[in-house]
């Protein structure tokens, strides 16, 4: 949706202009209705399930506000939500964005307490369209101030738009120019099949997948932040240069930050956190990582992925491995190495394929392997600048570059070609332009 050309260059400007003209109270409803329309177009019939869930939760909020047994009702509500999410994942009928929205709903249930949330505000907190698909999971205390009418007479302000435009372009660039084009490298490896991999190709694929996943999600999160800011409802940051982390623990304080804090605040700490002894800590971490894996997907590879992270985090906490974060270079090598492997586990749902892939990364080929060096060099030739550019942008250099360009007068001159480049790729991947689908 954020990368759809009609949304970015047509709907978004129109919405912004419209909301600029009307007072905030009406503006909220315009946002809600526009958001609902956008969401239902993308999610189709199953989206109604999500809308229903949100309404049911609003009912829970009212119940909590008027009930005497607030904690009990909250508990019931949370269980109902978890049940809905589990049912969706198990049956496979997952409305778009449901994993994020359910977690958002639970967060609001627990945080809002017995406050009465106005209906319009609630709908925005839960179904604000920039964050409904993959957006950051925001906190009630963070979003509430921005929805109070007497502070902002209008939702949309010029300086917000100004800031948002730059950020949106950056996010768009990362997603549409870098991530989407890198995706075809991994895709072609999947087409060739795991048996067609050679060791260098496997690493190239894993690295490009790691970059692609990062820029896709990061780009999206930046666009969500930018859109939120433009509409007067700032959203939390989700990424903080994760590939520059010094340990896996640090990594998870920088990757998908809002999810990590959600698990920390609503699972880890209620279970006792690290305050009940080492054994209990390990158990709590186990619960958190099992659930994190399951949240991403219910196939075995996601559980393995969660456990992979769990083991590393426990080792970092309780063994000398933790000292790695004090090293200068080793920590980064360690981090990139483990995270790249972890994304391979994340990516391949077929356990057979996964095992073959990992073995291939370490030079162990299956007997019927059909690997070729030809393919590696061809892929390298085609993609090297994307991979190299991606690696550069995955370092703190990206942020520095962003500020360096956009704080100077010529930043505007950079913006236009950047937008043009993004527009070019967006047009090219638009579905109705079938002639650009190339085999």
């Amino acid at each position, binding site marked *: 949706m954020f990368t759809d*050309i009609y949304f970015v*260059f*047509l709907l978004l*400007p129109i919405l912004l202009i419209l909301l600029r003209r009307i007072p905030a109270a009406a503006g909220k409803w315009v946002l809600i209705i526009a958001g609902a329309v956008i969401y239902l177009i993308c999610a189709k019939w199953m989206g109604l399930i999500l809308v229903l869930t949100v309404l049911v939760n609003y009912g829970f909020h009212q119940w909590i506000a008027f009930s005497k047994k607030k904690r009990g009702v909250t508990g019931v509500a949370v269980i109902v939500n978890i049940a809905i999410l589990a049912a969706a994942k198990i049956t496979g009928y997952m409305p778009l964005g449901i994993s994020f929205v359910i977690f958002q709903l639970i967060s609001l249930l627990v945080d809002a307490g017995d406050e009465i949330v106005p209906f319009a505000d609630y709908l925005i907190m839960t179904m604000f369209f920039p964050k409904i698909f993959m957006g950051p999971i925001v906190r009630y205390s963070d979003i509430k101030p921005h929805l109070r009418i007497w502070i902002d007479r209008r939702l949309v302000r*010029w*300086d917000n*738009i*100004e800031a948002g*435009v*730059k950020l949106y*372009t950056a996010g768009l660039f990362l997603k549409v120019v870098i991530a*989407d*084009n890198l*995706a*075809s*490298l991994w*895709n*072609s490896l*999947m*087409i*060739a*099949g795991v*048996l*067609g*991999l050679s060791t260098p190709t496997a690493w190239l694929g894993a690295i490009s997948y790691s970059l692609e996943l990062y820029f896709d999600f990061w780009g999206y999160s930046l666009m969500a932040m930018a859109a939120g800011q433009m509409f007067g409802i700032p959203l939390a940051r989700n990424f903080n240069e994760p590939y520059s982390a010094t340990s896996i623990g640090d990594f998870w304080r920088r990757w998908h930050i809002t999810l990590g804090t959600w698990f920390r605040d609503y699972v880890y700490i209620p279970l006792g956190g690290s305050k009940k002894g080492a054994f209990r800590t390990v158990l709590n971490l186990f619960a958190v990582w099992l659930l994190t894996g399951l949240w991403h997907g219910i196939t075995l590879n996601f559980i393995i992925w969660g456990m992979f992270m769990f083991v590393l985090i426990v080792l970092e906490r309780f063994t000398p491995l933790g000292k790695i974060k004090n090293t200068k270079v080793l920590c980064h090598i360690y981090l990139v190495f483990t995270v790249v492997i972890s994304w391979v586990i994340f990516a391949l749902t077929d356990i057979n394929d996964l095992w073959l892939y990992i073995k291939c990364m370490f030079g162990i080929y299956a007997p*019927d*392997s*059909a*690997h*070729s*060096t*030809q*393919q590696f060099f*061809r*892929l390298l*030739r*085609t993609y*090297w*600048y994307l991979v190299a550019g991606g690696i550069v942008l995955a370092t703190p250099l990206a942020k520095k570059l962003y500020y360096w360009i*956009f704080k100077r007068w010529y930043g*505007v001159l950079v*913006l*236009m070609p950047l*937008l*043009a480049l993004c*527009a*070019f790729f967006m*047009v*090219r*991947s*638009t*579905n*109705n*332009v*079938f*002639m*650009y*689908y*190339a*085999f």
Partner: protein
Amino acid sequence: MHSRNEHKIKHYGRRKYTYATALFVIFFWIFEGVSFAQGKGVLTDTVNRVETGYESAVATAKELIGRKGLAGDTDTAETDMLSSADGSDGSETGGEGPGDGMPEASDGDETMTDVVNGGGDGDLQEDEGPVIIDEDTIREDEGPDCALIRVNDTYFDDALFIGDSRMVGIYDYCGWNNATFLCDNGYSIRSYAKGNAVLCQNKHAKFTPEEIMESDDFGKVYIMIGTNDLPSNDTEAFREGYAKLIDAINEKEPDAVIYAVANLRMSLKGENSNTGRGFTNARMIAVNEVIESFADNEKIFYLDFNPLFCDEDGYVNGSYTFDGFHVHASEYSQMGDFFREHAVAYSVTDEQIYTPTEEQADEMTETQTDEQFATPTEELTDTMTDEQTDTQSNEQTDTPTDT
């Protein structure tokens, strides 16, 4: 009044990004509007124009610098995403072709002798007879000219492979480092007819087929193209373009054998995911029929390896493919073997383009009986469908003439 205007003026500088974006958006839609007014539809023509513009800009720049496009130097800028016509290149989710294993020994392990060298190398390990005539490919209108035999990889020393991403897969996985591959994702007859250059995989630069035939000599040309022409759904244009390609090859390489290879079909899943874009098996079969019509069994031979991968329903078996269009890397060995087993030993001028070893020659004369000229029986014609006619088999003359 006065102060309110002043207030506004001061803000211009502070809103430059907003204004710049607004300007871009306005120009973008004007551009699209112009395209639309010219009957080209909104959005559809934009990419084409940009790519063509970019390519001509790059070409002009190169001319100014004095570089020619035919040099074999590595120029990776050529392979970047923007410079591919018709949206063809690896940045689409069509992906690149997979292929088969490393340059392993082909079966038969014969050592091949070159026409130029003339002599055999000894070391012959033959397990089967060299002459392979596929009974289920005997055609009614065949005129026996050359037998299709099995060769080993040196046959492809002077082979030119023209094609799309499936040919790229053959480049990746059949291990023919000696051959020339002029193929890339998205290449189509439509693209060829427009005169677009396409990436030569082993030379790392772009050429048109005419250019590459001028710079090198080829004894065989394999053409496997047409998948990316399906969306345009214009059989006549395809036929014309293909004829133009054949003519170009005949002109530049008059002695070369041309193999018109049928396009690999889709799996059911692949068709279902892509019908909206115009990719259907029915259209693929129609395109393959056009290709087949060019075969004359003297200079142009029709090869079809679809029977290797397809089920009875005419679709590629789902287990062979991930996306429905490309087979797995491990399956390309079958394609490679197919090409090795369906090769022509004689060019159209009866010039021997592959010298069989002594034992092979003996076998050839031995097996030369009337059976080779078998006219198809009633049974056979009944069971013949497009899926089953792939190669033509022809008679081999008694004594190979050496030139």
